């Protein structure tokens, strides 16, 4: 007893004991959290819609996010176009209608896919054919050009309100195209070095040229190279030296005839 008391009274041992306990506790918490996360992921994986349409989250959360997103869109349009309460009510109603129609579609897809085995590759190919249109709709946004909301928006807005909204959309599209163009030049500089002065002049030349009025989502990442390829060669040669110009031509040549998905 006396011996064991001495053993426990050892300060160093006590400190070590506490440290080991803390390390073990931390490990246990880590493992438990990981296991819980795996269980949750496993449950989500069983649901085909959660896997392909809900972006890995459960249906209730997905629908809540869509509802909030729709409310945000209506609120923003109200701010941009300064529409009145009656117009707002109509838009909200149309947006709610679009959402409910989409939720009904989801139910149909769930019904059609409920008996498929997600472990079976052949069956999953059939599932994909059923699910992919819904997934594309989600990616394109429920309130897209074909939605009731968009149709009603076109009918509800006055000429001035429409102009304000179109101007907002135009500026947003332009900002995104400019962003892609800048990122493309940043990528270009991994093969073709530009001085600050050359970059500034090249950007100014690009800004002076027309941007596409509309870019489809799938073509957006290419728009920078398409814009670079459309530049007047003589103008480019004024900015770059011979070696740079040769490299520039080599990089942009493949994009000279690529204008698919762009409306000028």
């Amino acid at each position, binding site marked *: 007893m006396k011996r064991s008391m001495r053993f426990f009274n050892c300060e*160093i*041992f006590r400190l*070590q*004991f506490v*440290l*080991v306990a803390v*390390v073990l506790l931390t490990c246990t918490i880590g493992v438990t959290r990981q296991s819980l996360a795996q269980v949750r992921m496993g449950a989500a994986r069983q649901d085909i819609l959660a896997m392909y349409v809900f*972006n*890995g989250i459960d249906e209730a959360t997905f629908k809540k*996010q869509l509802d*909030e*997103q729709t*409310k*945000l*869109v209506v*609120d*923003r*349009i109200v701010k*941009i176009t300064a529409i009145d309460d009656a117009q707002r009510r109509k838009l909200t109603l149309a947006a709610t209608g679009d959402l409910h129609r989409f939720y009904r579609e989801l139910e149909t897809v769930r019904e059609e896919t409920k008996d498929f085995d997600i472990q079976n590759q052949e069956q999953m190919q059939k599932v994909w054919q059923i699910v992919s249109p819904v997934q594309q709709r989600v*990616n394109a*946004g429920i309130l897209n050009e074909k939605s009731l909301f968009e149709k009603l928006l076109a009918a509800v807005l006055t000429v001035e309100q429409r102009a304000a909204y179109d101007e907002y959309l135009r*500026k*947003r599209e332009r*900002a*995104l195209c*400019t*962003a*892609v163009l*800048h*990122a493309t*030049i*940043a*990528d270009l*500089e*991994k*093969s*073709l*070095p*530009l*001085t*600050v002065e*050359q*970059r500034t002049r090249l950007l100014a030349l690009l800004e002076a040229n027309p941007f596409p009025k509309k870019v489809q*989502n*799938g073509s*957006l*990442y290419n728009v920078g190279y398409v814009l670079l390829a459309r530049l007047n060669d003589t103008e480019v040669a004024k900015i770059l*030296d011979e*070696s*740079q110009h*040769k*490299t520039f031509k*080599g*990089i942009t040549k493949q994009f000279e005839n690529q204008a698919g998905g762009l409306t000028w």
Partner: protein
Amino acid sequence: MSISIDWKRECKSTMILYRAKLNHCIACSALLTAAAVCLSASTAKCDDEEFEAAVAVEGVPGPDDPQMQILARYARVNCALARRVCKLSDEQEQQLANLDDAWLKAECEKLLRAPKEGAAAGFARFFGLGGLAPVRPDAQPQQIIGLVSQEIDKRIKSCLNIDQASAFNDELDARLKFRRESHAEVIVGILDKRLFLTDDQRIELKAAISGSLNKDVAWSIYLMNENYLPTLSRPAIAKVLDKEQLAALSQWRNADFESFQFEQQVMGQQEQFVIEK
């Protein structure tokens, strides 16, 4: 209490065994074993020549390797930038010419062969703070590329005089700033589609995001998968967005795609146009 640790590192390709021989109280063993693992991972001076050779063979990419091609391109482009920023003498040109594939290979070897020292590094890694500690770069190709790229820039600057090096450095800084800002702009554009940002918010958000980006993001991947965003600094964004917009951020999933991952795949598959000189 005297404690002595006698450990030996045995290496066969990637398998590493650690042995801790402890001379005292049994209760110390758990802590000391952990300490020995940390210390040996960080301070190991490998006596085993076989291990050294294995690392050299397995770790260093060959000239056709995508990683080596990325490095060779970086070196060539930055030398070309130095030529455009500064008027170089023949002697300086000769020094830059030495920055070739053999030099790059030697740099990679040097990095892979030199284990980082310091007990703090081992302890930091043990407690999950690997990012704070110097890490042997053989496990992470992007780390090798990052470190060798720094060496390339250092080497180029060493060939230049003070004024030239300063001018070259300014150009590198401006290029990096432009790249980070352009990536931030693309992320802002993706957010804008769903959040309906104002003009001011676009500008402020770009500044907030570019300030927190420390890697080259694969921006085109995010454009094609608009449900994903890189991990962004929430406090920085929260200052710019309103309550509804912040709540709407939850619809994006975080995934950090780096441009390096995709460049590696493209290298060797497509014709590469890189500046000659």
